[in-house]
């Protein structure tokens, strides 16, 4: 007894100090994490709850998930929502594919060929890329008015025109990201293929492109997300509501305080954000790599 008592006493005290040390060094981080998660997630949980609320307004949403109904989702069918989804996908995917192809081709040329003016062109691209195209939207607007008189498909209110405007930034913003990646593929492989008798286009399509797939995915995703999130250009170029993208259309739903349709907005938000959310989280690692290499979202 006499020998065990002090032992349990010290181990108790030892445990006590260990626990308080654990609390001081690690433990407090869990409540903080809970706080951050609450901060990060409550708007998202709220919009999910509002989308399931049959009353279809923000006013009714006192308690989360007080009613579960899919009325708002059904009501989406009476709007142009799915047309806008289609437009957004069409515009975003075209812009992404175009950006990937053009960026990859240019990066291939800069990485593999040595030609006059190469350094100058690269520097020029680097400088051009600094000036955001959206700031020149007045000129884009006036240009498309004039172009539309000649080629109607490239005028105001044309989705093709919007895609072309987005493609204007393909070279500037993506070439550098890809250029670095292309450089990491050893030139010896090209030379080996050349000795095999492959032409430059065969090397590009058959050898390089499959090897750089990760960077193609990142560039494509970034181009898609930036087209998805663009508002200012889409707003001024797409006039009639059957041509709108989600950003323009959903803004219209809630921009007017009196007629705001928060119910269908919430349902639309859940549908529109979910794929992007999943895609982002799944490709987290690649995107972070892409971000630190120069393209910035936030």
């Amino acid at each position, binding site marked *: 007894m006499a020998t065990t008592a002090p032992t349990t006493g010290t181990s108790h005290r030892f445990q006590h100090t260990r626990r308080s040390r654990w609390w001081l060094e690690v433990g407090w981080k869990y409540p903080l994490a809970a706080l951050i998660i609450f901060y990060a997630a409550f*708007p998202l949980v709220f919009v999910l709850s509002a989308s399931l609320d049959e009353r279809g307004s923000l006013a009714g949403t006192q308690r989360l998930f007080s009613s579960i109904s899919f009325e708002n989702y059904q009501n989406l069918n009476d709007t142009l929502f799915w047309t806008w989804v289609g437009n957004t996908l069409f515009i975003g995917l075209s812009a992404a594919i175009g950006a990937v192809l053009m960026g990859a081709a240019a990066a291939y040329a800069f990485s593999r060929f040595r030609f006059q003016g190469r350094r100058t062109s690269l520097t020029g691209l680097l400088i051009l890329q600094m000036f955001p195209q959206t700031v020149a939207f*007045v000129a884009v607007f006036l240009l498309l008015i004039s172009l539309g008189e*000649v080629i109607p498909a490239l005028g105001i209110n044309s989705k093709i025109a919007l895609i072309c405007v987005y493609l204007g930034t393909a070279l500037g913003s993506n070439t550098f990201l890809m250029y670095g990646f292309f450089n990491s593929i050893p030139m010896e492989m090209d030379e080996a293929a050349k000795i095999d008798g492959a032409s430059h286009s065969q090397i590009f399509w058959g050898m390089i492109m499959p090897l750089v797939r990760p960077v193609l995915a990142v560039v494509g995703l970034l181009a898609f997300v930036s087209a998805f999130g663009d508002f200012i250009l889409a707003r001024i170029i797409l006039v009639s509501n059957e041509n709108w993208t989600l950003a323009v259309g959903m803004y219209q739903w809630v921009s007017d305080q009196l007629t705001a349709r928060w119910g269908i907005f919430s349902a639309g938000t859940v549908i529109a954000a979910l794929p992007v959310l999943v895609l982002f989280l799944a490709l987290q690692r690649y995107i972070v790599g892409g971000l630190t290499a120069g393209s910035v979202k936030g």
Partner: protein
Amino acid sequence: MSTETTAPAPSTGKRADSHSRRWTGLGWGFVAKLLIMMIVNAFGVSAIMSAWNAQAWVILGASIVLLVVADWVYFSRRMLPLKYIYPGLVFLLVFQVFTMIYTAYVATTNYGAGHNVSKSQAIDAALIQAEREVEGSPSYPLAVVRDGDTIGFAISEDGVVEVGTAEEPLAEVDGAIDDSGRPTEVDGWEIVKVNELLSDQALAQEVTDLRVPVSDEADDGSLRTREGSTAKVYRSSLVWDEDADTLTDVDSGVVYTPNDRGTFVGDDGSTLPAGWYVNVGFENFTKAVTDPEYSKPLLKVTAWTFAFAILTVASSFLLGLFFALVFNDDRIRGKKTLRTLFILPYAFPAFLTALLWRGMLNPEFGIINKWFFFGADINWLGDPWLARFSILFVNLWLSYPYWFLVCTGALQSLPSETTEAAKIDGAGRWRQFRSITFPLLMVSTAPLAIASFAFNFNNFTIIYMLTNGGPRFEDTSVPLGSTDILISAIYQISGVAGGRADYGLAAALSIVVFVVVGLVSALAFRQTKKLEEF
């Protein structure tokens, strides 16, 4: 060539990956190129032809040059690098380089409401605007006719049917008329039914806008209709004298001469509404600074733009860094899950975030007031300072995950030896952070902070979606508000989305933004020294 590719290749270790042996030289690749170039040429030639028809000389010149260069690049053997760069280059030149140059040009003009066409178009517009029904003009029974997309008028004069369109003056054709003299059948044309005119708004508008010249002589006037069943002769009261460069009102005798502001001014002091754009030099720039109507709000907007961009970057960087420091700790369980949950806002589309917060911050029924302020009636987006605070808060929610990710990555790549050495030297935790971790972190994150500043400097979406730039300034008639940043101010002033258009001033402000962003980026450029990489 095809025989060569089957020859054994030198061993590269990647033999299995190589697709080159399956390729057959001048095979389908060349065919594909030929097909694509045929499409490109067909498109280019049709663009050139319609540019010619529309008399759009700049577009005509540009399309000819682009097409010729395209053919030269793809059918010459020497232009190898350009073959890969050219497609992207075309889009870059047209939609980025040209628009920047054009912005600079527009900034020196008075392009905008009342001055939005060239001079010759303004004269045409003035002539049309001055058109009046000719007194005593007979009223012709009218049938609207159609051939494909072309709309025309068919009338009968003394039992003879005549047809004309906007381009073609009236000419005789075969046809039949009913008792009232209205054509019922017109050779080569389809008659548009009256019901259709009544039900189709767009068509009705087209018909009331249509002017069919009576003859080749412009002075004979043209046929117009108000309701689609009778046509009358209209004639412009203005006459254009090309040599004297004047417009004369034949009814009142007033002579209008052009002034250097792009407006016709009459000798009685009156002006014509149709104007054209002229070069005004640096007037737009000086107007932004000296015109009291603009200078005060623009100064506030500029100050807020800088404050917004700097505070956003600083707050989100610090919060993200703090979270990264706290949770970059191997003793925490479930780090990966926590990290994924922390960056949720970043994965949420930004425009939806802004709209969602707009609803949540609503003073009457928004949940922010209801949940966190016990139903208080706080007008988050209606008060100038609260609106600014709300924008910073929402943007913080949106951007801290980015900095959390970046700082976590940077922390993990820091060499552990340096901190260990500091520990041995007896440096405390704060000292370690201040003297070792933070400076090392700044090396990799400073360029990103500058890029983020440049991005937020033009973060139109968050401002426009959350507050529309409001609440409006009350001491000016310019449609600007307390939370407008430069780009949203440009948007409001330009009038591209409605309202009074002033492209000139908007473009001048765009140039200012370009200069600021350019300077900031040049700073980043020197920081990253990207140039040394190639």
